[in-house]
């Protein structure tokens, strides 16, 4: 229609409007619409309602010419014709419809007539159907109930049958190893057994229980058997659990077994380095596997497993701790740690608890700390061992002082260095466990050095202190008396060692540790709180000084004893004329020689003093002789008073000789100090005695003889000369009859003595 409507738009529209106005119940509608349309229509619009034919004619007549009018006429006539046909058609159609409607009404009327009777018929029939069905229902009801009852009984019977069959079935299941089914059956039958097991189904119950017992046994076996797959074992465990079997017991047993198997997972650190670690690895893998299985089997056993794993790690670490206590290198430790760490990682994967990781971290901390301390303590041990060797060996070998000093210094430096290298190795290894500890380790190392050096002083003090407090030999020295000499050497070694540590070892350690840890981000560690070289070096400096002092005092004590014997035994007032240089001079010089030897081995030479090359013994002695002669010559005349005055005056004008100067760590300084102290002691001993002339002369001779060799030894000649003079003066003061020996005799006696010693040397060599 639409396609048809389009070209006939105007026409159709008008027609519809017309039709609608025709049918419209409301007449106001159409004029309204026409009104609206009329507004737009001009007067010459024929279609509008307000069309005025006269006006239209007028306008048309006015406007158009004839031709136009004619044309319009033709056009209008055509339109009119068209409209007539349309109208005709409409009327026809209308009519047609009307006829149809009339026909239909007629037909309806005739059809409705027979309906009533039919309806009644239908109702009747329906009624009869209903009554029949009711009849059927009532008649079948009883039977149905019966059937239902029968059905229930049948079910029950089937169940009973099932229960009776259960044992057989179970046995069958056992045979076919269908344990899952068996368990299902049994658990299904369980309520029945529970209810009637004591009465009707006794035998049955017993039989099935027996079967179930077998099943349980088998299941247990399955659970325990390692050959079964994990899945099977887990299932078995679950089944056991379903059977109300005390699985905890089982679990405990299994755990025990696991634990037992752990014993095979021994960590033998000694073997890690050389032998194949695969042994251990395999064991660990097995263990890990077992744990995994266990977790599957007993999902609730996490805690125990963690504990187990933890125990294992702890055990490892305990073993490692033991191992660390023995002497091991960093690489060894590293190897062990690595193995443990691998284990931990493996186990961690399985047990999945971070606790293990933390735990091992903690333990590793302890181990490393232990390692550091034990390394240091071994270092300490090394040093004190090599020091002790001095005491033990000195009697046999003469030159072990230097050797032991070397050993000690080497031990300190090398030990420190090696240790740092080791530590570095450990630090460089990024096996995870150590990464976290890195800073801590560095800290510990620094601390360790500090502690080590601090402790190093203790054995020193202990070793050296043994003498002064002559209490007990808690150090296990067998021969106390014979030791004395060696001990002095030891003290000397200690002195030098202390100064060595102060001057060389500490800066080196500082430097090296700074170097090793320089890559670390922690700033200022080398001067941080952990390692304070200044404090330590101060400590060792003072210790070194103390030891040196001790050495000196030990040596002077020996000489002092010698001198004491010399001066307290004879009756000086009744002394005989001197015949030769007294023996004590030899002893003294011997002692000095020993000291010189020791000192030369140990101490640095120091600045070589410019020696007078030309000073031969005789010229020097003659010079001093003349001086002496002058002095003595006057005292000859009994003018002791003026002589005293003279010495006092001489003292005043002489530059005051510093006798007690500070000792330095050099050969010369130590020897000089000892000589000075001994000479001072000599003077003091002299002052306590009273001499006759011969006594004076004897001492004069002795001192004169001493002069030359001492000059060779001593650095500070002036002080020595002064002290020797002082001795002579003291003797003179304490002499009842101070007449010195004649210089020629003095010279002669000295020459005789020199000749004798030369002779002796010749013989001995």
């Amino acid at each position, binding site marked *: 229609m639409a396609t048809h409507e389009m070209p006939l738009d105007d026409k159709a529209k008008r027609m519809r409007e017309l039709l609608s106005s025709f049918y419209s119940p409301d007449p106001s509608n159409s004029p309204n619409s026409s009104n609206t349309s009329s507004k737009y229509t001009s007067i010459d619009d024929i279609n509008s309602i307000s069309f005025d034919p006269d006006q239209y004619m007028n306008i048309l007549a006015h406007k158009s010419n004839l031709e136009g009018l004619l044309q319009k006429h033709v056009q209008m006539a055509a339109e009119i014709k068209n409209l007539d046909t349309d109208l005709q058609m409409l009327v026809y159609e209308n009519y047609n419809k009307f006829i149809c409607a009339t026909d239909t009404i007629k037909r309806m009327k005739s059809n409705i007539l027979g309906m009533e009777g039919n309806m009644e018929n239908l109702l009747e029939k329906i009624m009869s159907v209903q009554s029949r069905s009711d009849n059927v229902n009532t008649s079948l009801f009883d039977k149905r109930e019966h059937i239902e009852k029968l059905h229930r009984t049948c079910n029950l019977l089937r169940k009973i049958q099932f229960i009776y069959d259960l044992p057989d079935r179970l046995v069958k299941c056992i045979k076919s190893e269908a344990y899952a089914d068996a368990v299902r059956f049994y658990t299904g039958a369980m309520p029945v057994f529970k209810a009637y097991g004591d009465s009707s189904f006794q035998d049955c119950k017993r039989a099935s229980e027996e079967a179930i017992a077998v099943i349980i046994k088998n299941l247990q076996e399955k659970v325990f058997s390692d050959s079964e797959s994990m899945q099977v074992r887990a299932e078995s465990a679950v089944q056991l659990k379903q059977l109300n079997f005390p699985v905890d017991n089982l679990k405990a047993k299994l755990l025990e077994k696991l634990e037992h198997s752990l014993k095979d997972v021994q960590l033998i650190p000694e073997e890690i380095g050389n032998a194949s670690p695969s042994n251990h690895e395999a064991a660990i893998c097995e263990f890990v596997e077992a744990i995994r299985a266990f977790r599957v089997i007993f999902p609730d056993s996490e805690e125990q497993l963690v504990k187990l794993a933890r125990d294992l790690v702890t055990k490892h670490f305990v073993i490692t701790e033991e191992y660390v206590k023995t002497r091991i290198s960093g690489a060894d430790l590293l190897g062990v740690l690595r193995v443990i760490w691998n284990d931990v990682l493996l186990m961690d994967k399985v047990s999945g608890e971070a606790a293990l990781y933390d735990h091992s971290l903690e333990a590793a901390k302890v181990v490393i700390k232990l390692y550091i301390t034990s390394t240091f303590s071994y270092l300490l041990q090394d040093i004190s061992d090599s020091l002790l060797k001095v005491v033990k060996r000195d009697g046999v070998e003469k030159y072990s002082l230097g050797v032991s000093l070397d050993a000690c210094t080497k031990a300190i430096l090398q030990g420190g260095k090696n240790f740092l290298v080791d530590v570095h190795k450990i630090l460089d290894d990024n096996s995870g466990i150590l990464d976290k500890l890195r800073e801590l380790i560095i800290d510990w190392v620094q601390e360790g050095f500090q502690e080590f050096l601090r402790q190093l002083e203790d054995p020193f003090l202990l070793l050296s202190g043994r003498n*002064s*407090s*002559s*209490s007990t030999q808690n150090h296990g020295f067998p021969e106390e008396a014979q030791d004395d000499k060696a001990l002095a050497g030891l003290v000397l070694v200690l002195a030098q060692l202390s100064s060595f540590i102060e001057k060389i070892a500490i800066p080196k350690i500082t430097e090296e540790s700074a170097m090793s840890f320089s890559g670390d981000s922690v700033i200022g560690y080398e001067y941080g709180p952990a390692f304070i070289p200044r404090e330590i070096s101060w400590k060792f400096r003072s210790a070194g000084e103390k030891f040196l002092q001790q050495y000196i*005092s030990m040596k*002077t*004590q020996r000489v*002092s004893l010698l001198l004491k014997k010399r001066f*307290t035994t004879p009756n000086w*007032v009744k002394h005989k004329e001197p015949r030769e240089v007294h023996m004590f001079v030899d002893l003294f010089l011997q002692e000095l020689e020993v000291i010189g030897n020791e000192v030369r081995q140990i101490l640095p030479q120091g600045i070589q003093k410019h020696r007078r090359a030309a000073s031969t013994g005789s010229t020097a002695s003659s010079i001093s002789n003349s001086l002496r002669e002058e002095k003595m010559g006057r005292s000859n005349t*009994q003018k*002791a*008073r003026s002589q*005293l005055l003279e010495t*006092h005056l001489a*003292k005043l004008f002489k530059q005051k000789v510093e*006798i*007690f100067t500070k000792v330095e760590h050099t050969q010369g300084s130590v020897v000089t100090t000892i000589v000075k*102290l001994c000479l*001072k*002691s000599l003077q*003091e001993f002299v*002052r306590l005695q*009273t001499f006759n002339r011969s006594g004076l002369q004897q001492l004069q001779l002795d001192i004169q003889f001493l002069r030359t060799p001492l000059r060779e030894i001593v650095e500070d000649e002036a002080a020595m000369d002064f002290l020797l003079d002082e001795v002579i003066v003291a003797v003179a*003061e*304490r*002499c*009842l009859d101070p007449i010195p020996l004649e210089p020629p005799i003095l010279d002669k006696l000295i020459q005789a003595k020199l000749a004798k010693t030369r002779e002796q040397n010749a013989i001995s060599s």
Partner: protein
Amino acid sequence: MQGASSGIGYGLKYQARCISDVKADTDHTSFLAATLSLKEENEVHLIRLSSSGTELFCEGLFSHPNEIWDLVSCPFDQRIFSTVYSNGESFGAAIWQIPELYGELNSPQLERITFLDTHAGKIKCVLWWPSGRHDKLISIDEENLYLWSLDVSKKTAQVQSHDSAGMMHKLYGGAWDPHDTNSVAATCESYVQFWDIRTMKKTSSIECSHVRSVDYNPKQKHILVTAEHESGIHIWDLRKPKFPIQELPGHTHWTWTVKCNPEYDGLILSAGTDSAVNLWLASSSHDELNESQTDSPTRRVDPLLKTYSDYEDSIYGLTWSSREPWIFASLSYDGRVVVESVKPFISKK
């Protein structure tokens, strides 16, 4: 440590070894010093510190027949003192009385009360009863210990009892316990030995070698200070005689003598052959000190308060003044008496 020479000096003519505080002189601070000269006529000087404390002057000068090795002033009579002397060959001891002075200074003769001369051996020192008027004296020679009863008015002295030190020991010096007057300490080569003078028997001993000098702490019981040749100064608690409770380093050379201050506990003076006098402060509470020493060596403070080193020669004579206990007198071998005050260190305490 080299302090400015604040001391007041006084010169003896000759060399000298001994100086003694005149304890009985309560009006003045006086000292007796004696010379040691083999050949010259020896003198005993009575030296008095001026009341201003700035000057030492000679109150009396008395000649003594022999060189004097030891001199002790009588604790109850300022005019009496004992000397140990030597004529070069043999030693002797005597009790002397200073004659009444009538202003003249020219060497009046000393009155000898009595000799203490039963000695076979070399007499070393004489000890007076520690305090107060008492007739007892002790003399120590190399081998023996004698207890004397002195009667000043009758001018006699009798040996009451004696004991020998034993063959191997040579006695050297001693001290009388001021707390327990029955006990006397005597030093020999390797021991300090103790005698009970009632029984005149050895009671105990402390093992320490080369003791030069021994002094009781007058303020504290059981405390004994010894000076050794080589190993400095040791402080002992007699109840714990195994180990010294404190060690002080002593002197560079021998520590010759050691003296406890009569008033200030813990102040100890020592003199040595290194021409120095050292003033020490031992901690007054010895037990605590002992602990702190073993526990924390860092806490140890330097016990050396001061070194007086303004001397030319070895110092053998040293004494505190009992009247003014902050003053001490020292005597070096060259005959120089120096009186110093330790007041700054006391006030600091």
